[in-house]
């Protein structure tokens, strides 16, 4: 079970990382806030599994693409707030062009004629 979960996260990581970075462009946010934001901006189409959100956040933090600080939320909760670093901003730009490539790529896969053996 554990192994399967692991590989699923890995497969999505490129995409999820990009979405997280994109979300943080609008300002610092805590984990729950990020999840909410992704859900609402994608008109509920992308249900980000919280199970993969936190690994992604900590991975991005380790890569120094985002930084985190403890803060107090509007209703008095102690929360960990993430914000984009300059490296993260740069990465986001790169990820965007990669995203464009990927869409083309996937389109190409679907449009490839069937090869003769």
């Amino acid at each position, binding site marked *: 079970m554990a192994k399967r*979960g692991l590989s699923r996260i890995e497969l999505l990581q490129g995409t999820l*990382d990009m979405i997280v970075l994109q979300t943080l462009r609008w300002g610092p946010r805590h984990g729950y806030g990020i999840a909410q934001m992704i859900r609402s901006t994608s008109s509920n189409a992308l249900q980000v599994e919280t*199970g993969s959100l*936190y*690994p992604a956040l900590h991975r991005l933090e380790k890569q120094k693409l985002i930084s985190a600080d403890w803060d107090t939320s509007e209703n008095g909760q102690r929360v960990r707030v993430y914000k984009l670093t300059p490296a993260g901003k740069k990465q986001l730009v790169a990820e965007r062009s990669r995203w464009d490539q990927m869409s083309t*790529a996937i389109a190409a896969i679907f449009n490839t004629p069937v090869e003769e053996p």
Partner: protein
Amino acid sequence: VSTDRDRDLDDEIAAHLRMAIEERVKRGESRDAAEAAVRREFGNVTHVKEVTREERDGRRLFESTVQVLRHAIRRLRRSPGYSVPVILSLALGIGLNTAVFSMLSNVLLRPLPFPNQSELITAGTRTHAPKDPPGMKDPTWETFGRDLAAWQNSRSLASAGTFSQYDAMIEGPFGPEQLSGAFASPSLLKVLGVQPLRGRWFAGDERGVRYVVIGYDLWKRQYSGDTNVVGRTLHIHGDPWTIIGVMPRGVGLPLDAEFWIPSTEVGGQLVARPKPGLSLAEVAKDLETSGPGLDNMRHAGFTVQVVVVPLHDQLVRSAGPALSLVAIGALLLLLIACANIANLSLARSLEQRRETAVRIALGARRRSLASLILAENLLLAMVGAVAGAVLAIWATRVLVSIAPAEITSVTDIGIDATSVVIAALLAVGTGLIVSLAPILAASHVTVHPALGENPRQGGGRGFRRFRRALVATQLALTLLLLTGTGMLVRSVQRLTRPDHLGFSPHGVTIATLDLFGSRFRVPGARTSFLNALALRAKALPYVTDVGLGPAPLVGGRGEGLREGFNAIAGYRDSATNANVTFWVKDIDPGYLATYKIHLIAGRAFRETDDSLAPQVALLNAAAARMFFGRNNALDQTLPPKVRFVFRDKNHPLVHIVGIVSDVLQRDLAIETVPEIYLPVKQTPESPVVAVAVRSPAPSKDVVAALQQAIREIDPHVAATRLEPMDAVVSASLARHTFLLYLLSVLSGLAIALSVIGLYAVVSYLVSQRTFEFGLRIALGAQQRNIFGLVFKEAALLVGIGLLVGVPAALGLSKFIAAFLYEVKPHDLVTFASVPILLCVVGFAAAFQPARRAVGVDPAKTLRTD
């Protein structure tokens, strides 16, 4: 720190859950329902924490490695067309190299079986004259210990002993055997620092008694390890010897000796331990100035240089260069195999460009792609190494069975821990090397073009150039191996030509007899035995000639005395100021005819050249040139300055009655030495112990007949050598044939690997250009045009290979020069024929792809793509 951070993560997730619940409660859900929904939504909290921690702290190395390896195994099992050839090439490369390097390390690096063996030294003499024939550059080791007492009292040596090889026919309770043995000085064991396993060693008072010490293996074999063996009898050449001791297992000198008898006046090779703090050069200096035994040689016209080397070096010395050459050959083969694997692996990565592109598009990091490739190749290398190790065990056995005695006598050679380490290192090394190319290739994959392109046309110009470079390199390396082998082949051909030998070995059978026992110390006993044998041999059917005298090509390993040479003589040439050694052989009138040695001028010996007639001699061409230059040597007398070293023989007026052609004496590859032939009848107490018989009958029958004759004359006399001369020639060639055999095998494998590499690249090219060929055919191109296109590619690769390989081979050929005889390192025949061979190979490799190209159906090809 880690626990703090864990608590932070707990807090963070707890806050998340609280916020989510609160929000749901705010929307009007009951607290219980909200909590349940949030938990469901979030999933397994513990698992999420675990994964998060892994992401944050990095996954544990072991788990990720296992995962990558699993993936690699899956991929390799899916493509046996790639894995199998790669594993085979690796097994071949690693196996052969492991075998060769095990042998190398065993022979060259394994210490001698004596305590503090690195202190042990030996000494030899050599004359250093500019015009000495190259073969005489080797120092003479065998006789240095003649004045042992003096060496034992020398200022520079702490202890000194001697040994000298003595092979003999022995007979124990389990029957007769021909064995390696040695004369040894009583001091030898003290020098070596070992003790007998049972009984004792010689005390130095063995005059008049026959005491022998036997080796461990002989003790086990002939006496079944009898604990009371001391006092039992061993027959050596028919004489009974009393066993006084048994040596420990694997300990003794020479290393392959199985029995030792005390050396009397014979002496032998010196083994010593220098006094502490003295360098080898200091010891040599002292021995050179203080050694009384050297005075005799100086009086005989030699200038003597003493050479002191570690005993280990001297014992393994001759094996070193040949083994190194084989090792270089094996390494070249490994490189060729590596190029092949890199090529295959590159082709595979080109095929997988689309897969790679998709992986990259989906977020796979290039580093993880690289580690996958690395894992695949290391896995293949490991499997290859295991297969190689199996091959190595077998190859070592074959190597040992064909290796010349100088290699196998040093030690028992097998696959050991060192070999395993070697194989593992080779495997990791090759795995890394062959991974480089595909990793570079993968790191250059850019998503967009790779996905857009047709899979058949993958691979940019860079890849094609790189693959071509690999194949060209392969061909160049193959050329190196082939030229080396080619020159050796030519060299061996030359060595065995009769005009090089100076005699015709075919049809001659020789018998060397052990006539050194006490019964033969009676004057005339030796000669009468030999004459009786010669008479019987002449009476045998189909025997055309019988001759007495030392056989050519024997006596190389200090066996001169045993083979019946009269003496070695010395002479100082006043014109060139060079010191010259020459051989003296006692022969009878039948000798020249038996060996078909060419008489250049004058006459052969006659029966009338006996003790009453004037003293006569024959010279070989080298000696005639040496004594008389361009002047006629016939009817001259032997120059009075010719001195015999080992015998104080006066030769008032020896008339030179004939000149004969040069005959190889010591070794096939060593230049001929000046020789003086004297009639047996004019040499009282001649040491000759050899008879030669020429007969067209099968040598097996002649050997049997001679055996019979010897037994009939005296059943106690053993033949130390009874074999066809052809066998002597091939034994003398052993070092060359060993090299030749190994290099031929390596060359054959190299050609096979190159063909595979070339085939792969050319056939890849054909599949890449199928569309183009189809179009050309559709437009009316002829078959030969298409053939031409394909062969042009092959010709290009072979051409580059030759352009690189020929200069490299010319540059490196000096390394093989030491193994060549009468073949120049820039041998024209070799350097002309090897490129031709490679062109043929190139043509053969390109033929099948070319046929495929011609067979392209334009209608089909053009429609599909």
